């Protein structure tokens, strides 16, 4: 018995030790790690992020690299889980000698990765992690080496409320939210506060749980209150359920939501006439956007979604900051990112004191099966 355990331990040690022997750091390339979920529930998000980031990096390599050096990419599946993401981060930093990380996708995984990155002096930028605690620690202090490419949840809710009152002339709104989901709750609360501050009234405020499929009880109340706006800032899967049932219950309110709606699986017939806030629109005439959409189409054969765009932007911002710093020292790159302005696909980004990008959001409308660009709203 003891012998067997001993062999097991020796075997495991060999397994751990072997790859470490092979990976000597080469100084002529700059190594960047992509940590994204490539398996599990949100695997499509991870794939999109990687597609976008790879596009930016390969472009840069084709035009001579950054600081005259080629970029080498290490890809790890961090599974949107804190444990897997931390071990992936430790692996790429200790074993591959990476000093720059793009990732993770999920806030719950990005936060522990940021602890590792801060402890080991590595620069990290996440594409779509919206939780404020990714870049700010519990004590409210900004993590000096951590950045993000997306706007945070409060901003989307505020923009949606501003659009509802100013552009749609809405007076009353119903808000449906999943109490257990930080993203949804964040958007809802900031929508409510901002909508009421603009003189509107939230007449229905109802929460549900993530497993609910039958929304008839809530929607009956919504119908009875007949609000101008029905705000459902959840992911498309839940929005599909609620929207289809709402129409059948005779709810005529204009539906609104957040970037969770941005999916090819959104039931466009059910949310017809609805609006949602998003990071970018492929129809936006800015040259950065049009150039990116064209390149992405050529390489992958599909239109980029928001995740691909944020992956592209995260990589672009990081590479621009390295160039601006003129060195691959993470602390100097972070200084350059803090003070720079980055004209990327999702807007002209500069960073506030909490390392959150200051940029505008776009409003998109779902109409007759198409999603069209309506407006850009600055914070």
């Amino acid at each position: 018995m003891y012998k067997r355990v001993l062999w097991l331990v020796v075997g495991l040690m060999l397994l751990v030790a072997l790859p470490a022997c092979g990976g000597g750091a080469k100084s002529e390339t700059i190594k960047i790690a992509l940590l994204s979920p490539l398996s599990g529930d949100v695997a499509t998000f991870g794939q999109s992020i990687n597609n976008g980031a790879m596009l930016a990096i390969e472009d840069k390599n084709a035009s001579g690299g950054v600081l005259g050096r080629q970029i080498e990419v290490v890809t790890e599946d961090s599974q949107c889980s804190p444990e897997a993401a931390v071990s992936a981060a430790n692996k790429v930093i200790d074993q591959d000698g990476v000093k720059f990380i793009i990732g993770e996708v999920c806030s719950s995984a990005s936060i522990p990765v940021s602890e590792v990155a801060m402890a080991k002096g590595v620069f990290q930028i996440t594409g779509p992690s919206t939780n404020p605690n990714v870049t700010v620690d519990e004590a409210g202090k900004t993590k000096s080496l951590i950045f993000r490419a997306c706007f945070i949840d409060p901003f989307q809710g505020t923009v949606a409320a501003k659009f509802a009152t100013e552009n749609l002339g809405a007076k009353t709104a119903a808000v449906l939210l999943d109490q257990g989901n930080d993203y949804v709750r964040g958007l809802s609360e900031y929508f409510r506060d901002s909508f009421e501050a603009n003189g509107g009234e939230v007449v229905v405020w109802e929460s549900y749980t993530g497993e609910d499929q039958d929304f008839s009880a809530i929607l009956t109340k919504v119908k009875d209150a007949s609000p101008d706006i029905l705000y459902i800032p959840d992911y498309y899967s839940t929005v599909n359920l609620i929207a289809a049932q709402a129409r059948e219950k005779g709810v005529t309110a204009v539906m609104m939501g957040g970037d969770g709606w941005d999916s090819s699986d959104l039931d466009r017939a059910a949310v017809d006439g609805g609006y949602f806030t998003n990071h970018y629109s492929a129809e936006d005439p800015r040259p950065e956007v049009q150039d990116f959409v064209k390149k992405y189409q050529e390489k992958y054969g599909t239109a980029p979604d928001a995740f691909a765009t944020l992956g592209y932007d995260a990589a672009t911002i990081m590479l621009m900051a390295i160039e601006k710093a003129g060195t691959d020292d993470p602390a100097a790159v972070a200084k350059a990112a803090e003070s720079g302005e980055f004209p990327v696909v999702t807007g002209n980004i500069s960073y506030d004191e909490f390392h959150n990008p200051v940029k505008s959001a776009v409003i998109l409308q779902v109409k007759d099966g198409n999603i069209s660009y309506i407006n850009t709203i600055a914070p």
Partner: protein
Amino acid sequence: MENLQAQPQAVSAALNRRNGAFLNRISQGLFALFLGFVIYTLGQALWDNPSVFVQQMLNGLQLGFIYALIALGYTMIYGIVKLINFAHGDVFMVGAFTSFYAVSSLNLHRWPAQIWPGMPEGAVIVLGTVSVILIAMVVSAALAVIVERFAYRPLRDKPRIAALITAIGVSFFLEYFGGLPFVYTNNYITYQRPFEVAVFSAGMVSPVLIGAAWGLFALSLGATLVFNLMARRGNVQAKEWLKHPLLQFGVMLGGFAAVVLTLAGVKITTNGKIWDLSVSNVMLVIMASSILLQVALQYVVNRTILGKAMRASAYDKPAARLMGVNVNNVITATFALGGGLAGAAGVLYATSFKQVHHLMGIIPGLKAFVAAVVGGIGSIPGALVGSLIMGQAEVLAAGFISTPMRDAISFSLLIIVLLVWPQGIFGEPPGEKV
């Protein structure tokens, strides 16, 4: 010892304390308090806005009829094999996916139009929908039979806990096998309905339809009364007619449809506000199919040789075997029937919520199981009544008390029901047991 014998009251008090009678009383009191609170809240809601209250009840009715179809499978299988078939909810999921592929990929709901291009649209829709439901039923029944043959039958004579654990294993297998990328994928898929949704609200329901529903109800109720009278006078034939499935079907469907359509179609005003109730055709289809399948099942169980064999096997398996009943075949048939009903429920569920997902069977399966227990597991009418109660409890709790706590509240109500009727509402009447 002697001291205690001298004080019988002290003994009984001590025993009570040891049995937790005091705590029981406190918990009963708390439940009574809770029940009072629920009744008060609902009563106030009804008083404040009767239109919304009735609409919520209609919502609950739709949910209840779907649960009923799933609950029947649980109750039948438990009645015969004494096995809680946890994989039942996943058979339901497979039924929903079967219909999804039948409609979206194979376009099966339009087959009558492809064969007879001149067919009227209404007939195409009815025929197409019925065939989609039938296909889902057949596939689900086949799946249930396969599961029984390979997972449960080898364990039939082993301790019951082994089969129970196997059932949980089969359930997980179906859920996550379905979630594989080459099976159903783990995405939320928007379901394409075999028919378009139409919403009826005040003034939109044709009086003919309302009249027809009332007519059906009156006719079948009248016939029932007449046969009842004749049967009391000793007419044997009338006694047989009284049990005819068409009669039951007429009374149940006619009754429910008449009430629902009248509510939706007639303008009612309270507190100076016109009632704005709406009913969709999905609900009517769910109601009709659910009642039809219930009555058909009652017919099979009570009036056919197979049903007789099922009841015999449920009552005493070895004795039934000695009487020449092939118990294995009976059990296979039970699983086929239960699976078929679950498949139909899957189609109806997906039709009403317009989404399919590989884990969609878990929660409805669980709720239907609870409904079957509340109705009295093993009893067919119990499954229907339990499910209707479950649907109402859930929707009313969500509508008027607290949405995030709807399951907590509705399940507490069910605990109260079980405190009053520990065997479930319909107990275990040996005659009705399947």
